[in-house]
Every structure is written in structure tokens, then in C-alpha cells.
């Protein structure tokens, strides 16, 4: 199965610091993941999961073995990085952040009465980057319309990413 994985700028896993084998032109080596009660296997994103895990660098990953699905990720016992998704660069990160901020303003200020307190958090959050703004927009959608709107906003974010990244 082909999936996606965000890594830190230095090619290590965000939560475990694991250094993924990478190759310039070819897929990286296969990695077998230890089974562990709290954090088993290799975690990866389907396109719908991307907004929840936005990070610095994005890779395409090939997963193997019995794949388990959770709400916002898939987990496999084996995986290897295929290629870096070069389209996810500083420019696109900023564009995504701005898109989410604009959506957040639209959602907050379009409410009756406007959600002023919620709107006030948006711009100060921008320097913290795309992952936060994605949450902010979805959270404001939820505040305005309810829990289902949180998911819907995340789905919108995913669609934006899939289109811009050519996935």
C-alpha cells in the first residue's frame, strides 16, 4: 500500500526521532517495526489523514504486511520511503497556512454574532505554522457548526493538499 509520512527537516520521525533510511534516486531500505503496546509498527497517512500530521517534509512510503487502520492513520509492520514529495516546500507550507487562516477568518467572522474571541487567535497563530492553523480552522468550524464540521473542514484541507501536491 502506498501512503504518506511527514518527517522532520532532518529526516527523522517526529515522535520517535528514528532516522529513516533515505536514498537520493531509489527507495530507501525496508524498515521492520517492533511491536509495542502504545506505539506499534510504522505509522503513515492516507490522503485524508494528512492535515492531522502536517510536518516539515513529506514522503511517499510503501507499506507491507498486515495493515491496521485507525481513525487518522494506518499502521504497518514494514515500510520503506519511496520518494520525497518535493511539492511540499516552504512556499506551499506558507500557502496552506494562509489558506487555513483565511478559512478560519471566514468561519469566525461569518457567524452571527461573529466569533470575535476565536478570530483574535488566528493571526498570532500563523508563525507557528501549517499544523496549528489547520487545527484552528477546523476548531472554529466545529465551534460554529458542531462536531461534524470539524471533520468536514479537515476533509477540505485534505482535498486542498491532494490537489496542490498532485497525489
Amino acid at each position, binding site marked *: 500500500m502506498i501512503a504518506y509520512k511527514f518527517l522532520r527537516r532532518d529526516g527523522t520521525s517526529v*515522535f*520517535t*526521532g528514528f532516522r529513516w533510511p533515505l536514498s537520493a534516486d531509489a527507495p530507501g531500505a525496508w524498515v521492520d517495526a517492533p511491536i509495542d503496546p502504545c*506505539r506499534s509498527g510504522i505509522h503513515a497517512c492516507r490522503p485524508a489523514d494528512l492535515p492531522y500530521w502536517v510536518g516539515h517534509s513529506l514522503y511517499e512510503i510503501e507499506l507491507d504486511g498486515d495493515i491496521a487502520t485507525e481513525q487518522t492513520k494506518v499502521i504497518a509492520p514494514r515500510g520503506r520511503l519511496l520518494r520525497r514529495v518535493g511539492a511540499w516546500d516552504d512556499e506551499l507550507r506558507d500557502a496552506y497556512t494562509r489558506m487555513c487562516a483565511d478559512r478560519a477568518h471566514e468561519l469566525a467572522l461569518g457567524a452571527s454574532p461573529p*466569533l470575535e*474571541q*476565536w478570530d*483574535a*487567535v488566528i493571526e498570532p497563530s500563523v508563525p507557528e505554522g501549517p499544523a496549528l492553523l489547520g487545527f484552528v480552522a477546523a*476548531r472554529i468550524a466545529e*465551534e460554529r457548526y458542531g462536531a461534524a464540521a470539524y471533520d468536514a473542514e479537515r476533509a477540505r484541507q485534505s482535498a486542498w493538499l491532494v490537489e496542490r501536491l498532485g497525489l
Partner: protein
Amino acid sequence: MTEIGVQSSAAGAEDVELVARLRAGDEKAFEALVTRHYATMLAVARTYVKTRAVAEEVVQEAWLGLLQSLDRFQGRSSLKTWILAILVNKAKTRAVREGRTVPFASLAGQADEPAVEPERFRGPHDAFPGHWRSYPGNWGASAEVAAEDRETLRVTMRAIAELPPAQQTVIRMRDVEGYSSDEVCAALDVSAANQRVLLHRARSRVRAALEAHLDG
């Protein structure tokens, strides 16, 4: 970096050498060993018996017990695991003699103890309820915690000494001595979940003390 509790394991080269030195009558080695484990052993003993004075007696009995059975130490477990077993044995015996039945968990402290004061988070009627009003410090950038700063060590030691007994015992056993979660639960006769609550509260208090010291 993920946390891995130190699991009990067989005696390493250090332990084997230490036991050899004890058998050879090396007083300095014995004194160093006693000093290294004293505070934790006292804390553990204290959870079983009525007074500090009795706890000190229990610790002394444990060290005597260790010397008397030193010939039987085969290195199948680490020295500190072995010492703990002897200590708990002595403590339980003493507790029975005292007729003490107070369960350890009752020493836990207040029912509810937030890790961080609620005022530092946005309120239920604010935007983004439950989120930080302002962020805690980024210590990754601070040299003081990274380096072995003497004042930081002092603050840490003082914070540990001021913990409620049950919390102090658990954090000493886990984070000072490196006993595994299973060992702590067995020695103190607490569930894994209760042990984690005590550890959480202890670590949270020490963090708060460090924060007050570092961030002013």
C-alpha cells in the same frame, strides 16, 4: 526520544566487581553503596512502618541482611534488585510486628492534583477552552537544564524532599534508582495505574519547581 523504563536484569560487571570488593572487606565500597541507596531505601521502608526512626532501623537490618547473605548472591538479578527484595522483606516483617495495615495508596495525597494550575489555561467560556493562555518555556534552548548545573540539582533535590511520601518513594525508585515499573508495583504493592498516578504527580511537582527556578 521515547522513554524506556529500566528493566530489572542480571548483575552487570559493575555489580560483580562491587560484590567482590565487599567480600574482600572494602569499607569504602560498602559506605559508597549504603550512601547511594539510603534515601530511597528509607522512603520505601517508611511506607511500611509507623515512624522514620523505625524505618531507619529497617534499613539497617536490610544492610545487615545483605552482608549475611552476600555469599549467596549469584548475579542472576542486579544488586539493586536484590537489595530491594531484602529491604521489602524486612519492612514487611516489621510492619506485621507493628500491626500496621495502612495501605500505601492512602499516602497518595489529595484526590485531585492538577499537574499545572488551571488558571494557566483558557477557561470553559473562552475561545479555545483548555488551551494554554501563554506557552511554557522552551527549555530545549536553555543550557541550564541540559548542563549539570549545581543550582538546578539543588532545586531538584529540594523538590523531591518536599514531595508527599508516596510520590517521593515512587519517583526515587523509578527516576533516581531506575527500578522498573513492575519492580516498584511489587515492592510497594500498588497497581500499575496507581503507580503511574503517583509518578505523574511527583514529576509534575518537580517540573513546577524547576520551572519556577528557571523561568522565574
